[in-house]
């Protein structure tokens, strides 16, 4: 005979304001098998849990139903409480009467009625719950970091520091990400290269870190503690192990008209190239779209000058396969393309640039050696206009609905740096709002206004028109003064919104992690689990999870590392016991289940069965490996004889829930 306890939570007023909790407890008390039904203000609190534990012991409960918030929130809390009171944790069910009832309904009578039905459904299910025990599965003590920006580098260094092997997969020829392109960094204005390149070198020299540059993740299989990842090492037509990074090939290469990605296309590079002087690994890469040898078979200069014999025009993509216990995603961001913003004349006028292009124009290693010159005629700009929120906080299709967060600060930085170096240059910033929360951030912005006399104007830029004299007409409104302005500018800088890398979406599909509608990776809980994805064993680091500046990126990178280390420290992890199992007496060995299993968890064994006539017969039956099964249930529906069932979500349990709802 079942002895079920029901516990209804008020959640302060979150539930109690729209659901009559007393009535729910009272009604559920009459359900079959229920021996105790109580309500309490905060079930998840220490005293609330005590209430549940005491009831389990005193009433000798065989099942527990908690009517509270979503099971995604506190299922584990109550399972642990039950376990500590001696009840199998899988004999606990949650009725979600907050997210799926009190928060969405306003009428107390109907909300209470629905809460009772949800509670009744959980009671019906718990009648059929069976005690489950978790299996242990071993953890591979190696981590994979996808993306080698500052986020990926920091995560890898921290994991390596803790004594675990880490591989970084970076799609570009060098690690470093966007930070390598930035000139100086707010709020301290120290040079990005000075703080980044030592970290890049540290990563390359750490014996626990392997960097797979110019590589991509091709396939991911497995689950937490035991992922199998296929990495595609793209052909760079240079043998990484032989190349010494001397750079002679890049000097001698006759094809020098290739737009230089690292300098945002503001100057050219050769067909064989090293992205920048401090690249890690410092290895040349041939761009087959421009290399004359690869296109027409005529040239071969690089091969002739390379004394290391590293050039290999016939190199092919190679694949390596590796096992990992944890995966950290650090794929970062990119500024959006501005093709759709005709009003800012970005495509028409070379002197209209993005902020990232400006970083390169001001950088000592940039196209002009650090002197800020107009890209069109290499003259010194006397008036510069900055436009904020280009594509950020946008309602229309062209832009992004969110705030890109970093632009207010980097624009203040740009303005200040320009005024510092070129006091004769006037700087205007058009903004919607200036958003500078963060330690020492608002002080930084005020310095730009007060100390450097940057003209901050609240208002929108309506149109940017290149003029025949080489100047640029900027038409804008000053909202505070209530007037229209025309500024005769030499340069216009657009703070383009930032978006996740385009490869993030297919990667999320491979990793079976979730993304939000903007393609940023979604954390498991926005407040309490900010660096974990909802998929166990996969962690998030840096701007791939949302716009972030460097301090925040690094903080999150270390947090993700800490979570990954926490996992790698374990020798084994407890598996989800809600896995499939087959009834051998019903199974006819048809293989339907095996075909739909995405994990290869089902194999077939020959087993001896006693027949009614006492003879024995050997039959082929399905057998599920509980350490590999992830409990999706695909096999249970595919099975034609109904032999497959899923613990925790069994056919009879779900049917009972259906019946209880329809009653």
């Amino acid at each position, binding site marked *: 005979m079942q002895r079920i306890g029901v516990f209804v939570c008020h959640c302060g007023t979150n539930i109690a304001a729209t659901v009559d909790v007393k009535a729910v407890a009272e009604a559920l008390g009459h359900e079959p098998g229920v021996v105790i039904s109580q309500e309490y203000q905060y079930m998840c609190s220490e005293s609330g849990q005590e209430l549940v534990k005491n009831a389990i012991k005193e009433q000798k409960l065989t099942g527990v139903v908690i009517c509270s918030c979503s099971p*995604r929130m506190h299922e584990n809390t109550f399972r642990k409480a039950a376990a500590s009171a001696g009840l199998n944790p899988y004999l606990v069910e949650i009725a*979600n009467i907050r997210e799926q009832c009190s928060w969405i309904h306003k009428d107390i009578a109907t909300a209470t009625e629905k809460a009772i039905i949800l509670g009744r*459904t959980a009671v019906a299910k718990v009648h059929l719950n069976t005690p489950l025990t978790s299996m242990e599965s071993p953890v591979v003590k190696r981590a994979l970091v996808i993306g080698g920006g500052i986020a990926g580098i920091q995560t890898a260094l921290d994991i390596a520091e803790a004594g675990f092997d880490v591989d970084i997969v970076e799609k570009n020829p060098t690690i470093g990400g966007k930070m390598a392109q930035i000139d100086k960094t707010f709020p301290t204005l120290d040079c990005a290269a000075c703080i980044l390149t030592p970290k890049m070198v540290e990563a390359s020299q750490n014996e626990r870190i392997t960097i797979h540059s110019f590589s991509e993740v091709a396939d991911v299989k497995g689950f937490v503690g035991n992922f199998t990842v296929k990495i595609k090492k793209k052909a760079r037509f240079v043998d990484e192990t032989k190349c010494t990074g001397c750079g002679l090939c890049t000097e001698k290469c006759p094809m020098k008209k290739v737009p230089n990605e690292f300098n945002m296309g503001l100057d050219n590079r050769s067909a064989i190239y090293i992205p920048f002087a401090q690249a890690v690994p410092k290895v040349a890469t041939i761009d087959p779209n421009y290399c004359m040898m690869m296109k027409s078979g005529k040239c071969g200069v690089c091969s002739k000058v390379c004394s290391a014999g590293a050039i290999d025009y016939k190199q092919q993509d190679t694949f390596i396969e590796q096992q990992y216990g944890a995966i950290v995603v650090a794929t970062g961001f990119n500024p959006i393309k501005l093709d759709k913003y005709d009003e800012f004349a970005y495509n028409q006028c070379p002197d209209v640039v993005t902020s990232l292009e400006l970083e390169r124009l001001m950088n000592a290693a940039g196209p002009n050696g650090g002197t800020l010159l107009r890209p069109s005629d290499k003259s010194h700009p006397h008036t510069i206009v900055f436009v904020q929120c280009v594509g950020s906080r946008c309602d229309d299709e062209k832009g992004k609905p969110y705030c890109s967060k970093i632009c207010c600060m980097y624009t203040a930085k740009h303005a200040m740096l320009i005024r510092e170096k070129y006091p004769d240059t006037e700087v205007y910033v058009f903004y919607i709002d200036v958003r500078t929360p963060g330690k020492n951030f608002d002080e930084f912005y005020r310095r730009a206004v007060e100390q450097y006399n940057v003209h901050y104007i609240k208002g929108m830029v309506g149109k940017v028109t290149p003029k025949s004299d080489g100047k640029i007409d900027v038409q804008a409104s000053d909202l505070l003064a209530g007037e229209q302005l025309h500024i005769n500018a030499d340069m216009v800088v657009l703070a383009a919104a930032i978006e996740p890398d385009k490869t993030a979406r297919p990667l999320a599909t491979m990793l079976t992690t*979730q993304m939000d509608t903007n393609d940023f990776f979604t954390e498991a809980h926005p407040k309490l689990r900010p660096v974990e994805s909802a998929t166990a064993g996969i962690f998030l680091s840096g701007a791939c999870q949302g716009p972030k500046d460097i301090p925040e990126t690094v903080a999150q990178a270390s947090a993700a590392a800490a979570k990954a280390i926490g996992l790698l420290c374990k020798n084994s992890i407890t598996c989800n016991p809600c896995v499939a199992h087959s009834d051998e007496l019903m199974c006819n060995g048809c293989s339907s289940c095996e075909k739909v299993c995405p994990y290869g968890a089902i194999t077939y064994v020959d087993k001896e069965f006693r027949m009614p006539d006492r003879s024995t017969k050997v039959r082929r039956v399905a057998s599920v490996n509980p350490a590999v099964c992830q409990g999706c249930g695909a096999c249970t529906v595919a099975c034609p004889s109904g032999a497959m069932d899923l613990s925790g979500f069994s056919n009879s349990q*779900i049917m009972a829930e259906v019946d209880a709802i329809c009653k």
Partner: protein
Amino acid sequence: MQVNENFEPVIVAFCCNWCSYAGADLSGTNRLNYPTNVKIIRVPCSCRVNPMFILRAFQKGADGVIICGCHPGDCHYTSGNYFTRRRITLLYSMLDFLGIERDRTRLEWVSAAEGAKFAATMQQFTEDVKALGPNRRLEDLRCRKQ
């Protein structure tokens, strides 16, 4: 067909744990209202939904059944929702054959980020089922509420 203004349909929603159930939670967190008629059953994946469960719901007097899963390509278990899609398509043709209104059963993809879509879908589905009236053809009279 006469439409009964007071008819409150019973609607069973099967939601996968990873996307749609989280989407439902999100519409709760954002206080997006949808009708109380909808009651959710949590399943690990939409592919756990045996067509038998759907028929059972109709037999027991449900007026509409909706199955929600991750968007194609985004399944937590890689391929589960593709199975769901095929199975439900087959179920549709069977229901057609039996003469059951197609609109009583629906398959929707709702991601964990789509709280608003979840609420809007449930609102719409409830209205559609309301317009169809009570499910009489599949209901087992022995299960009829008194």
